[in-house]
């Protein structure tokens, strides 16, 4: 079984920052597992600006922000990168099994950093009743379809929830010629950043309905519309659309290490730890996690 001082699961902004910080602090052999064929994680589909204002003091797009870290990697021969590598199991002995095309490896780590990101909450998690037609997407999936694959998810769009990804997608879809008919938020204020409400909705005259709940999604083949409750006036109305985006929050992706909480030498950073608003803060905190992992390894060695 191969051994590494430090294994990092996830090559998004959190994993990249942790790897570089740990190497800077003296870790000598690090394995970074990335499930995709590219490093950078979700940043790759975030082609809008607004990243790096705090950390780099300049405004970057998601891929540009990721590229800053990826460009550093050649300076760090101690960081081994394994792409298309999917961790399937982590044990209390810090043995990690991962799959990649053609092989199934089990390795032993001195310390592990889980930088597995988050996933989106779904329509099913908030129990919206109705039909199950094509055209219901999580906002992040719609973003991937459009920005990575170049496919338009729909033409007449209603967005449920006002999370940041939903707001960003309202603007993005409008720019691509789709008509965003409404963003519906059940709470009294938007769940997203104010700058996104202004720049993504107000600047494009996209209506944001607060205290509005979707009671039903309708449509047999493709989405045909939604039934909406105006909670303040207790009135319902229909909105015709061919697409529904769901942007109702994110959940840390922790399933693979759910049984290992509190295990010495197992660290968690980035959105897998808690959901962040800004990637700059992910970088800042994940660097600290990289340092902590090295400190742990040193104290183990001293024993």
């Amino acid at each position, binding site marked *: 079984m191969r051994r590494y001082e430090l294994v990092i699961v996830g090559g998004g902004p959190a994993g990249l920052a942790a790897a570089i910080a740990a190497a800077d602090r003296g870790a000598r052999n690090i394995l970074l597992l990335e*499930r995709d064929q590219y490093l950078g994680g979700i940043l790759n589909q975030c082609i809008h600006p607004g990243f790096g204002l705090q950390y780099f003091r300049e405004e970057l797009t998601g891929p540009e922000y990721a590229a800053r870290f990826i460009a550093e990697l050649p300076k760090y021969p101690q960081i081994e990168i394994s792409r*298309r590598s*999917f961790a*399937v*199991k982590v044990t209390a002995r810090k043995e990690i*099994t991962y*799959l*990649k*095309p*053609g*092989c*199934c490896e*089990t390795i032993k780590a001195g310390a592990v950093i889980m930088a597995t990101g988050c*996933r*989106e909450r*779904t*329509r*099913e*998690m908030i*129990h919206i*009743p*109705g*039909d*199950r*037609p*094509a*055209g219901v*997407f*999580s906002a*992040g*999936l719609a973003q*991937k*379809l*459009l920005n*990575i*694959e*170049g*496919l*338009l*998810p*729909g*033409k007449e769009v209603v967005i449920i929830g006002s999370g940041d990804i939903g707001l960003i997608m309202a603007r993005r879809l409008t720019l*691509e010629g789709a008509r965003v008919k409404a963003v519906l938020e059940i709470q009294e204020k938007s769940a997203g950043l104010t700058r996104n409400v202004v720049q993504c909705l107000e600047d494009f005259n996209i209506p944001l309905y607060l205290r509005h709940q979707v*009671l*039903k999604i*309708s449509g*047999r*083949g*493709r989405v045909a519309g939604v039934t909406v409750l105006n909670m303040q006036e207790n009135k319902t109305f229909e909105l015709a659309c*061919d*697409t529904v985006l769901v942007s109702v929050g994110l959940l840390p992706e922790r*399933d693979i290490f759910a049984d290992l909480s509190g295990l010495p030498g197992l660290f968690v950073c980035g959105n897998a730890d808690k959901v962040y608003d800004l990637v700059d803060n992910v970088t800042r905190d994940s660097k600290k996690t990289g340092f902590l992992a090295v400190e742990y390894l040193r104290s183990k060695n001293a024993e």
Partner: protein
Amino acid sequence: MIYDILIIGGGVTGTAVARELSRYQLSIALLEKEAELAFGVSKSNSGIVHPGTQNPPDSLKGRLCVRGNKLLRGLSREIGVYFKQVGELIIITTAADLPRLQKLLSDGRKLGVRGLRIVDRKWLAKNEPNLSSAVPYALYAPTAGIISPYRLVYDLAENAAANGVEIFTDQLVTGVKKGRGFIVETTRRKFEARFMVNAAGLYADEVAALYGAADFKITPRKGEEYLLDKKRENLTRHIIFPLPTDKGKGMLVIKTSDGNPMIGPTAEDIEDKTDLSTTAEGFRKVTDSVREMAPCLDTRDIIAYFAGLRPVSGADFIIRAETALPGIVTVAGIQSPGLTASPAIAEYVVRLLRKAGLNLRRKKHFQKYRPATSHLFASSVRRIRGLLERDPSYGDIVCRCELVSAREIREAVRRGARTMDGVKFRTRAQAGRCHGGFCTTRIMKIIAEELKLPLTAVTKKGAGSELVTGDRRAPV
């Protein structure tokens, strides 16, 4: 070409009949109106293999259920579909209902259901700890089991096809005429056959009307089901039933062959045969009823839901040779326990066809076995290593929630999947917590590549359910 037999309907009944008939030297075609098999009644089946209880002792469905329960064990081994005997408990909440439980016990014994016995609170506390302590007694039926309803259909169809059955999808039957045999018109073409089996599920009455047998009506009875996260696999150890009512078997806690517990179904008679919507009321009814049986139910564990329609026509199955139209067998009203009974229904239909004059000669080289499909999620690390030696793309993970590789998805398409739902039913990709948030684009690309389709033509469940509305990439 004139087929010996035409089967209308590609659900569990139609495919079980096709597989049974494929033992004989016959030319057989099976027609399905949807884009894929199992897309009608069968896709929403709960996957319970019933022991045979809850049916009147003199009923056809009772007899066929008990026989089907026996046959399905051997059949599942032959066609490589996972079957597990988990047992069921029919519970009562007041000791005053004990006589009703005893009636079910004696009815079940009359039908030949094996191993039935009444168990008490002490037994329940030990063997079903999450069950409400208010349950004093239950009828234990150890022969109940679970199977994947759609994988059963797909594997039956695949084995039937390996034995020469021709399968046609997207073929809505629009007319039946009498020629030398029968001429069946669909939205796409004509088929001719000497014998015909109507296994059209919800539409069996409409198909029967096309050949003049309009003496029964199918009423859709909607059932909403709610699926829980796999991590709650052990919510209960057995399938839990309340006492049956005239509307059906009641709200259940179901174990599924994929691990996710399922709760439901509701039972509501409706008019529209295409209404598969779920409702807030259904959600409340299911969760309230199930909480009475399993108080530890947490609605935050619900990760998916759907509704299915039972094809109801009276209290019993209708399986008959049409005497006015010799050569046609009608199989209708196959609601629960239709999946369990399906292999026995197939035997019964073959007997009716023989009586109607179909000449049955066994094939010399009937392929009885179908190698089981490999699933990473059901494989040990050692087995995964073996699979990787066979094909490196078993290590290319597409669906991370359910651990499904590119190889499995490609294989599903090569075995007949045409849509995103078809891939989901066969492989579980998109069936987990993230609902395809991460894997949809990869699956779309594999389907498009295998079927040589543009990405804009990839659908969720057939024509009219295209996933995307436009391609923004610059033409190359």
